[in-house]
């Protein structure tokens, strides 16, 4: 059914820290590696070694220059499905292939029902869905449903592949519907924001804005470097002799 549940038991999602993301693409490759063998496999690559390289990815990292009165800084910005509470991608689906789970709020595609009409990708303002031309169906982030509930993995690995891979801990996974969860506390502490609130898709994922700049840069009290052309003394005499 493509009608969206009025409320979900949990709201599983990601919190992404734009302050600490270094844009290393580890989450991107880790996502691709896991998911090309996972629930939505394969994530087809078209001409991977030739011209017109194309392919399906669930997670893309952009880089922006943010200029304000306080100065300019570079911000790396990972973009993936936000598992919205009002996902228009689900309601526009004519076949029932797209659905939002009542148990945890994850938005998924049933590949066996998808007719590849692409309307869901038009309905998503975040560019979360990518069409697989080789299979003829739409694909999207599954929040690694095949990891987070996977009893065959050690408990610490039951997080999305992107979260497991992040070397700077810029990605956090948890229940954003539970005010007592670690991710909810992080959002409250850092003023996490929803993307494009004007469109009222009510995304679950939150982004933590870069921390404010400080003027606490260290004072430079180091002594000057050694003088390369010494005056006087033995070294001065050697320098004069050799400079002739």
């Amino acid at each position, binding site marked *: 059914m493509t*009608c969206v549940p009025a409320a979900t038991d949990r709201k599983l999602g990601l919190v992404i820290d734009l302050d600490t993301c270094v844009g290393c693409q580890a989450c991107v490759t880790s996502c691709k590696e896991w998911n090309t063998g996972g629930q939505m496999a394969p994530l087809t690559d078209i001409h991977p070694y030739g011209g017109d390289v194309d392919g399906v990815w669930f997670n893309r990292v952009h880089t922006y220059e943010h200029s304000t009165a306080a100065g300019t800084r570079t911000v790396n910005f990972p973009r993936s499905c936000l598992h919205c509470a009002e996902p228009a991608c689900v309601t*526009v689906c004519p076949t029932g292939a797209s659905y939002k789970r009542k148990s945890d709020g994850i938005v998924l595609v049933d590949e066996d029902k998808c007719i590849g009409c692409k309307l869901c990708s038009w309905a998503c303002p975040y560019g979360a869905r990518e069409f697989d031309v080789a299979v003829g169906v739409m694909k999207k982030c599954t929040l690694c449903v095949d990891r987070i509930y996977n009893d065959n993995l050690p408990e610490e690995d039951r997080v999305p592949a992107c979260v497991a891979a992040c070397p700077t801990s810029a990605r956090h996974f948890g229940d954003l519907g539970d005010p007592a969860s670690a991710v909810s506390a992080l959002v409250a502490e850092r003023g996490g924001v929803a*993307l494009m609130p004007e469109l009222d898709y009510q995304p679950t994922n939150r982004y933590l804005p870069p921390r404010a700049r400080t003027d606490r840069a260290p004072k430079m009290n180091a002594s000057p470097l050694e003088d390369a052309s010494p005056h006087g003394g033995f070294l001065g005499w050697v320098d004069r002799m050799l400079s002739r």
Partner: protein
Amino acid sequence: MHPAYSVIFFTTATGAGYGLLAALGLSAAAGALPPDFWLGLIGLGLALSLICGGLLSSTGHLGRPERAWRAFSQWRSSWLSREGVLSVATFVPAGLLGVGWVLLGQAGAWIRIAGLASAAGAVATVCATAMIYASLKPVPQWNSRYTLPGYLVLSALSGLVLLNAVLSLFGGSHPSVVLVALVATAAGWAFKLATWRHNDRIVPVVTANSATGLAGGTVRSIEWPHTEENYLLKEMGFRVARKHAARLRLVAQGLAFAAPILLLLLAAASGGAVSMALSLIAPLVQLAGLLVERWLFFAEARHVVTLYYGR
């Protein structure tokens, strides 16, 4: 938005087909058109051919067309599914109209009901088509109050110009049909101009700031996640039309509105074979213009996802 030819042909052809079906249905219901086998066969046959051709063409852009039957299931939430259900449902009264009015030459109460139901189904299907686009919040040019009336008026005017062409084959045009076709075409022209004026003044609600959650100042894309165009840019980041938009708008206006009005007026002023020829050329020119208009409808629409790419 990428203008897929199958979807452009689909919306234009079914628009004209449903317009003609509605015009024939209402004429039959009002008793304005007495049953005539050849007129009915060609008129209803043309309408249903345009509808079927369009519907078949719409499966051309599907990744898995063999599963298209599944699209009838989610009418509770999806305008695309509703369009599918309504288009098939409309075949029932249209078929009854074909059997009763065309084959049996009847004009009784049940023909009137079938005519009215065909017209209602045609209007409802065109509304559903329009709502597919009008309900998409990420595309401000579509998510506007202009989209639904725009689809309806273009469907009506192309159907009426077609009806006039069919009537001209059988003993000449009816002055009332010519008049209604002229008024509809002029109204469609005015409405299209108003739509373009509205679209040119849209101030986007979503900005690069709100898309990235970076408040204040300016957000400039300095590096894409990929070196080549991906699905999002190919599908949503189409930019070719904007380069020639002004000229293409003139072409669309000339072919879809100005030329048909001129041709209909000349046909009314002349007589005999000349009048028939002009009446037959009018819908061909108009449909070519409407294809350009529909191409612009897609190509000029900007999806907010392009903000992530600084486009």
